[in-house]
């Protein structure tokens, strides 16, 4: 085919038309903030159902709803809808003061009645709250003026901490009762910094600033959060200018993108950790094997080589931000000690101890690669581990049934930062999330669940962590670092919980 002047003009015209029709809006001055998020939002009710306990979507909820007690970006507890709270002298009752002058997105006033109703609702087992086991510990929740009181059925020192955590959101009583569960899903309202303007499941949510927000109106008046679950697509979104902010991309891409003109990056530690569950079965009943496995892992090497330096080695299930973190608890990388311990149990490079380790692949950054590296390090000291890849759903099933392999890689999130929600649930035998059945650990943890003296309680958990580390009953690996790439025109304040919150973003 000969290329004539006419055909060239035709082709050019067609290309120009296509190039302008539906062209993405590349923001110079950012009017409307666009965020490419890594997960979908399945459901809008943050207090019931499977979504309510999904830590990865709490950022959506915190944009629209208010937690009873919010957490600041450094995980310290702030003042929210609940401005003051406490226990009575014998811990048989609680009180909470509700902020005045707060309105729901539909203009109705938020009252103490809403708080009392919200707490009563999630405490009722019929409602389907997955955290009912906490909220059900109070009863007779009553509102008087701006104060809410309740009787305590079972004392739980972490009760108020749960008010910053999963399902700890205030819901609009009048509106919910008017529209019902389905109506609420279709048109949710909260009291948070943003209002839901438009929601297309599996596609996007468009948020509009709540100008009457008690904490001050957010800077970006319109925010679109696209659900872009594929990491490569998220990279393309931000690189092309289609989105201004994205998160959870490969660290190599993070380094590349933040060096580009017009883009910047922030990588801060979050409350997620990588760990290896040890199930006290088969060879893992031998403390020498467990300790050898723990001392043979060079965590810093894994962080440097596999995670491009983005990660913090940890030796207990507490990260440095948590109150029960004790920097004096160390599990040193010492392959010679590992060899010695294994020799004491009759194992060595020529007669390796064998067991299975389970791992997800791609669920968390470099999860499988980390396990491969660990298996390589173990091999050097006389441990031959066979890797079994499984899906995260299988992990949950096996863990609940206490049927995990002797070793199993997992990540644990604990944005509330309390030791009960890390060491407690991960290591207390009766918990469906623990596969450690050791009686000593059980006995050490048991009295701490209801310890009223906070200092004593935290000290107790530190002691539990110390003995767990000394006996290598679990192998904590790293605290994750969350990569966020953003347009240079946006200032992003990362939150240690890992939630990407648009109301913490401003123009730079």
């Amino acid at each position, binding site marked *: 085919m000969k290329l004539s002047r006419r055909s060239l003009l035709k082709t050019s015209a067609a290309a120009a038309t296509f*190039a302008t*029709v*539906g*062209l*993405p*809006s*590349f923001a110079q001055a950012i009017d*409307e903030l666009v965020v*490419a998020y890594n997960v*979908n939002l*399945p*459901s809008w009710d943050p207090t019931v*159902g*499977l*979504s309510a*306990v999904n830590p990865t979507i709490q950022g959506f909820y915190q944009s629209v709803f208010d937690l009873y007690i919010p957490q600041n970006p450094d995980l310290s507890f702030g003042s929210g809808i609940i401005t003051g709270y406490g226990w009575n002298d014998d811990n048989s009752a609680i009180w909470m003061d509700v902020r005045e002058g707060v309105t729901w997105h539909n203009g109705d006033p938020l009252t103490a009645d809403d708080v009392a109703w919200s707490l009563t609702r999630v405490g009722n087992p019929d409602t*389907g709250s*997955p*955290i*009912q*086991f906490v909220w059900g510990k109070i009863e007779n929740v009553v509102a008087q003026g701006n104060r809410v009181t309740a009787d305590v059925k079972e004392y739980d020192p972490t009760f108020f901490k749960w008010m910053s955590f999963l399902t700890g959101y205030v819901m609009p009583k009048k509106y919910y009762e008017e529209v019902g*569960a389905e109506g609420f*899903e279709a048109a949710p309202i909260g009291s948070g910094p943003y209002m839901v303007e*438009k929601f*297309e*499941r*599996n*596609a*996007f949510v*468009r948020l509009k600033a709540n100008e009457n927000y008690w904490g001050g109106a957010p800077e970006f008046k319109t925010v*679109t959060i*696209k659900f*872009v*679950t*594929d990491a*490569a*697509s998220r990279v*393309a*979104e931000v*690189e*092309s200018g*289609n989105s201004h902010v994205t998160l959870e991309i490969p660290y190599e891409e993070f380094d590349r993108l933040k060096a580009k003109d017009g883009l910047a990056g922030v990588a801060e530690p979050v409350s997620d950790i990588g760990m290896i569950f040890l199930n006290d079965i088969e060879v893992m009943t031998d403390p020498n094997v467990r300790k050898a496995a723990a001392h043979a892992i060079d965590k810093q090497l894994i962080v440097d080589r596999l995670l491009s330096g983005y990660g913090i080695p940890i030796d207990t299930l507490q990260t440095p931000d948590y109150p029960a973190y004790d920097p004096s608890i160390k599990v040193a990388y010492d392959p010679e000690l590992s060899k010695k311990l294994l020799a004491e149990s009759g194992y060595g490079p020529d007669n390796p101890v064998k067991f299975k380790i389970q791992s997800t692949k791609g669920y968390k950054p470099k999860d499988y690669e980390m396990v491969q590296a660990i298996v390589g390090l173990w091999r050097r000291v006389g441990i031959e581990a066979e890797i079994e890849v*499984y*899906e*995260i*759903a*299988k992990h*949950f*099933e*096996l*863990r*609940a*049934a206490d049927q995990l392999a002797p070793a199993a890689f997992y990540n644990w999130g604990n944005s509330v930062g309390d030791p009960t*929600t890390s060491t*407690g*649930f991960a290591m207390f035998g*009766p*918990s*469906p*999330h623990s596969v450690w059945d050791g009686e000593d650990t059980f006995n050490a943890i048991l009295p701490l669940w209801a310890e009223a003296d906070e200092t004593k309680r935290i000290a107790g958990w530190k002691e539990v962590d110390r003995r767990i580390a000394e006996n290598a009953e679990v192998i904590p690996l790293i605290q994750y670092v969350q990569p966020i790439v953003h347009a240079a025109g946006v200032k992003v304040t990362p939150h240690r919980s890992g939630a990407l919150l648009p109301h913490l973003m401003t123009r730079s």
Partner: protein
Amino acid sequence: MTVLRNILIRLLTTAVTLFGVAVIVFVVIRVVPGNPIAMMLPPGATDADIAQLQAQYGFDKSIFQQFIIWLGGVMQGDFGQSISLRQPVANLVLGRLPATLELSIMALVMAMLMGGAMALLGTRYRDSKTEAAVDVSAGMALSIPDFLWGLVLILLFGVLWPVFHISGRISPSLNIDFSTNFYLFESLIRLRFDVWADLVAHMFMPALALAIPLAAIIAQLLKQSLKETMHLDYVTLARTKGYGENHVITREALPNAILPTLTLVGVQFTFLIGGTVIIERLFSYEGLGNMAIDAVINRDLPLIQGIVILFALLFTVVNLVVDMLYVVLNPRLRHA
């Protein structure tokens, strides 16, 4: 009467096929590891809590009992409630189906245009460098899977020359209340060309990624058919009548040569719909495939069942339509 009888037989076999699919899916997703209850267990759940949750979702019954209950609901149009999305499965899957259908149809049209053009070009310039180029292009297009084409397109038209949208189905800033979920067709009917263009800009890359491998298959098969037809007597006769080569190919040879391609397109269309699962995920396109992946991740058994049944129904219906179309287009079969 024969046609009617054939249709009835096909409908009956379709029903049997769907029942078989339902049984297999129902059993398999309950046998494979991954329990939805385990995924929603709160940290302090007791055995009683676990039992209560299992009873709430009916997992405390035998698989057979669960199947009978589910089948009873399906007969009345109730496919159950999604565990993760907490909405009726029927509403969810039927709500998403139009998006996937529009994407698949657009991909099919693109594949037919591209594949047809390549075949015609290869036939017109047979035994030349152009034909070799067509063959090489088709080989390349076929040997690279659709999701990889998707990544290539994202890089080309999303990042380097950002002409098309990388993710989603429609721009969030467009305000239009659709009456149906067939956005593309509805926007045309309502003469909202701005919306239509926006939808096309979103669908172009995923549709093209799906279309490229199919276009290569069409090109290869159609070119081969055309080549064979070009040697037939009636084509030679057309030439001797003085018709030009373009006329001979498009008017004389093509109508006969296209029939085997049509059958293939029908079969491949079902595969193309299956391919939307990965492509929709890659482009964050809000279709059935994207939802299917979330359902599998969350072990949302009722939703998985609903989606698979709908896919199976689509496959059988498409095959049925293709068979009928083949009868209509092929006079020998029509008068048989």
